[in-house]
């Protein structure tokens, strides 16, 4: 399978492709990053996991459609950037905070910051949203599935039904969010 075929498969696929990528380059990457940046075994694994997730996210979001180099070079390049950034931000002895790193990576405009308080509330209400709403909006906003694909996967009548359902789910999420915000003292929200 060519690298472009792998990319096409990731775009349409699920976690099995993620697993395949992770296992395919793991040993080589861990060996290389620990030698290049003198990382511990645990830090090397953390960096590799972040690199694979970023690669996956770039494919799904459409940022990466064709590879100018090989898949391995691209993946190792991400790993190098993550490791360098980590070294710049923190002392060498501090382990990478994967979730924080990925949270910042997901922001589309790098100069913008997400309000931590609002983000905490949003995460909390999202966990109470219930199914199939959680799955539907995750398929749309994270996995970047089309309404046509979502209608097939979640067995809606058609793409329009899926779209209407998604709007209802977002309205429900907003209502939960506003209700939760109303219970929090104003001076704790910026």
């Amino acid at each position: 399978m060519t690298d472009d075929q792998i990319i096409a498969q990731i775009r349409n696929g699920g976690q099995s492709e993620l697993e395949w990528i992770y296992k395919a380059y793991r040993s080589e990457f861990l060996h290389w990053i620990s030698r290049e940046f003198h990382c511990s075994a645990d830090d090397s694994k953390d960096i590799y996991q972040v690199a694979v997730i970023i690669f996956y996210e770039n494919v799904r979001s459409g940022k990466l459609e064709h590879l100018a180099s090989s898949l391995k070079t691209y993946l190792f390049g991400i790993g190098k950037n993550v490791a360098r950034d980590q070294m710049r931000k923190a002392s060498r002895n501090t382990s990478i905070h994967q979730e924080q790193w990925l949270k910042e990576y997901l922001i589309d405009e790098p100069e913008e910051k997400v309000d931590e308080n609002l983000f905490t509330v949003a995460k909390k209400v999202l966990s109470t949203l219930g199914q199939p709403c959680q799955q539907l909006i995750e398929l749309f906003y994270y996995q970047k599935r089309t309404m046509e694909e979502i209608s097939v996967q979640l067995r809606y009548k058609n793409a329009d039904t899926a779209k209407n359902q998604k709007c209802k789910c977002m309205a429900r999420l907003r209502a939960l969010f506003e209700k939760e915000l109303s219970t929090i003292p104003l001076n704790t929200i910026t």
Partner: protein
Amino acid sequence: MKGHLHDTELIERYFDNALSARETEDLKERLKKDFEFQKLFDQEKVLIHSVRFQGVKKDLDFLKEIERSLSEKRSTQIKRLWYYYAAAACIGLIALIIFLPGAEKDPQALYAAYFQPHPNVFEPTLRGGDPSRNLRSRAFQAYEGGNYEQAAGLFTELAKENKDAGVLLLLGNSNLFLGRTVEAKRNFTDVIVDFDQLDTEAKWYLSLCHLKSGETTEAMSLLKEVAQTATFYAPKAQKLLDELR
């Protein structure tokens, strides 16, 4: 209130990339001047950000789980190296029993092992019959002859004229055989949603579509439903479920 709803809808469409260039420009201009609108915008952004973060977190947990199993495997290998050498013959035998069936746990391999096109039990055909016969006969004849490309085309035509569950089921099978999983999923879903018959069959083949696409969770959910029926597919579904677990 109406204005608030309109603004929310406008912002949602912005994040869904459903606004025109002009509308996007207007929205950005308004964001600079209208504090309340900016507040709504920021709330929507943080909600979508939390949704994407939840997706990333799931994928990260999934990789950590893979890493844990790989590390455990490696650690056990190192600790018991002496034991493996001593008991090489036994381990070889156990490996044959455990790892060979385990190798089939790859969804693609399981799909290949379990997928067999549904037989044509809906329309009798005559071998070497007159090819100028009607569309329906030609479609079923192509299917029975294993010419799935032609069968898919003819069944599609047939479904436009008159949708019936059997035609959709075999159209789905043809598409699945040809690797067109998105179309096949739609065909089987139509059978499940629009008809009262062939539900179990459609769910079985839909689960295989998911398996072929690597969507193991969705496949297992359907297989559980099929395994609980009193049909020919129930034991096969249970066996496939066991292998996936």
